[in-house]
């Protein structure tokens, strides 16, 4: 893993490092050779780490004041909002933090899709990422249940009921999940427990995700393998640290704007009504970040097949390194893939939009077409494209040619093509 042997200067440092090589690890992290042409889309890894830490710290504080009981949860949230010192701030950071987390993770995922970061030798990083994403969705869903508002209650009812679609054992599984015959206090307490647990699972997986990343090193916008360390790389500290820090601050400005000026815009008004099992809200809508999958679920007329479609839509991503047959990573050199990429982005946004709309008439038709296209993209277009597409010539190194040292992509490409 380490590219050079590190020896601490002090005697104590040597003694300590021989027994627990923390200093070697720190040295590896600071010297870690990073491609110097990473653009700002690569800063979202750091931003996501920040989001996770923020959620854990604010979540711990909230848990000190929150009461996981069906009769008291709603009131305890109001207690946090009114009487706990800066409770409003902590809760709004936590609630909006979830949305910010998903915003960042979607950018992170789509960056991977564009630059082919999931391809060999980074499949494990990618699959770990998909597991993290799945756990994030579970954590977010359960967290939304905790305030015990109307959307909490009915969202929990709708989502847990999906399991009843499983043949034979479905009903039993739902009863087991609920801890009773409807969403009630036992459901709330177990959701709270799991909501507390999952972030630490995510934290562990994030460590593995970064570890797996440090084996081959970062992909880069050109998508070629580079020598490390070389003229193409910079040490992580200070170059990437300051750049990530700058991007993080920009992100925090957006984050702060939501927290301080529109803290409730991303939530649903109905969640400020205490849960009532006897009154069903007019529209049960999940949080915005789950809407594309909600649209896929509802676009299939059969309940079981709908659930299967929704799960496949996420799990298909895990197979992506093998579905994409192209040897070229970056979309920069794949003129056709680039176009299909943007169509996919639009397709997912459309799915998100119709997911928020009632599943009827034109919306349902659009949802069906968009769902079909989503699967078409991964199952047909990507595998075929790898064989059919005529890719552009790829430069040999980021700084090519060696003598010129120009990082300019256009010249690099021009020189490459004129050689051919």
């Amino acid at each position: 893993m380490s590219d050079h042997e590190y020896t601490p200067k002090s005697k104590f440092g040597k003694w300590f490092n021989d027994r627990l090589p923390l200093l070697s690890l720190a040295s590896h992290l600071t010297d870690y050779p990073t491609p110097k042409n990473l653009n700002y889309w690569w800063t979202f890894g750091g931003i996501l780490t920040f989001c996770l830490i923020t959620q854990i710290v604010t979540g711990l504080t909230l848990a000190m004041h929150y009461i996981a009981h069906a009769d008291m949860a709603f009131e305890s949230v109001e207690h946090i909002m009114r009487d706990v010192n800066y409770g409003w701030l902590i809760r709004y950071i936590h609630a909006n933090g979830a949305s910010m987390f998903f915003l960042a993770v979607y950018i992170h995922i789509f960056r991977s899709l564009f630059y082919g970061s999931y391809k060999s030798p980074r499949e494990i990083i990618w699959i770990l990422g998909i597991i993290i994403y799945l756990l994030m969705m579970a954590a977010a869903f359960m967290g939304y249940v905790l305030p015990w508002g109307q959307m909490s209650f009915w969202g929990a009812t709708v989502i847990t009921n999906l399991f009843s679609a499983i043949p034979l054992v479905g009903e039993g599984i739902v009863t087991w999940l609920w801890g009773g015959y409807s969403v009630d206090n036992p459901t709330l307490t177990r959701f709270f427990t799991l909501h507390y647990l999952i972030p630490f699972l995510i934290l562990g997986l994030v460590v593995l995700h970064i570890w797996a990343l440090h084996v081959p090193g970062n992909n880069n916008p050109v998508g070629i393998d580079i020598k490390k360390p070389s003229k193409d790389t910079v040490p992580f500290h200070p170059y990437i640290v300051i750049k990530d820090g700058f991007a993080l601050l920009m992100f925090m400005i957006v984050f702060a704007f939501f927290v301080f000026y529109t803290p409730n815009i991303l939530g649903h008004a109905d969640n400020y009504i205490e849960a009532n099992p006897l009154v069903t809200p007019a529209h049960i809508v999940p949080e915005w970040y789950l809407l594309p999958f909600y649209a896929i679920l509802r676009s299939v007329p059969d309940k079981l097949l709908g659930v299967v479609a929704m799960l496949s839509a996420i799990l298909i991503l895990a197979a992506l390194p093998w579905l994409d047959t192209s040897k070229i990573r970056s979309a920069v050199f794949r003129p056709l893939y680039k176009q299909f990429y943007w169509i996919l982005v639009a397709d997912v946004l459309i799915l998100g939009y119709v997911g928020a709309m009632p599943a009827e008439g034109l919306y349902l038709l659009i949802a069906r077409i968009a769902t079909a296209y989503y699967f078409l993209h991964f199952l047909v277009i990507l595998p075929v494209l790898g064989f059919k597409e005529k890719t552009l010539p790829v430069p040999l190194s980021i700084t090519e040619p060696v003598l010129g040292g120009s990082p300019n992509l256009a010249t690099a490409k021009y020189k490459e093509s004129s050689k051919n």
Partner: protein
Amino acid sequence: MKNFYRILSTAIFFLAVFNNTYAAEKAEYLKTNWSFKGLFGKFDRGALQRGYQVYSEVCSSCHSMKYVSYRNLVEKGGPEFSEAQAKAIAASFEVTDGPNSDGEMFTRPGKLSDRFVMPYENVKAAQAANGGAYPPDMSVLVKARGGGANYIYSLLQGYDDPPSGVIMDEGVYYNKYMYGNKIKMSNPLSDGLVEYADGTEATVEQMSKDVTTFLMWTAEPHLEARHKMGFKAIVYLIILTILVYFSMKRIWSRIETEV
């Protein structure tokens, strides 16, 4: 920098899409210039005090406000009644307390630490007294309705005769802004219904605005503190971002790569 504009425009696009999805189901609500809107929005103290008067003289006969305490009326960023005033308000309510040393429940005058006294013992009693409809608790009502303050403000002024052909049942009233246009609350406001201590004319519009401002405060009692802190936090972040930007430029100038 080009990438930043891209990131920014993506974020804005997301927001725009999101807003549209919710805008679609909203009716056009009446609007007014709310004192609490905007970067520096603060509550209009007079409106809050008048709003409390409307709430206590009109709404509170049916609507509870169980998460608000009398002490909140004194706190900074709220109606800011004097402590003596708030104590007098609290004392005008009978609060059930106990059990005492004899094991009996008893009533005593309210104290600042008490929550607002509820008009009905429980939800069932409230329903029984209101033809089966439960008058919702008003503590967070503004946040619990899609249109927020504008919705409440419009609803209070939305009572009208039903259009021809629409038949209203007994105890159901026509309201332009209610979901489905049918509401079980009779028109609560009429011109001159309350007499404002500060001499403001109590028109329906004025009372609607005052009581909605009050309800916004009960839903977001720390709104003023939030706006104040938000402005400081964002200015701080912007200055820090600029400083970090120039440090980054300086550090990356050692390499022939643009950042």
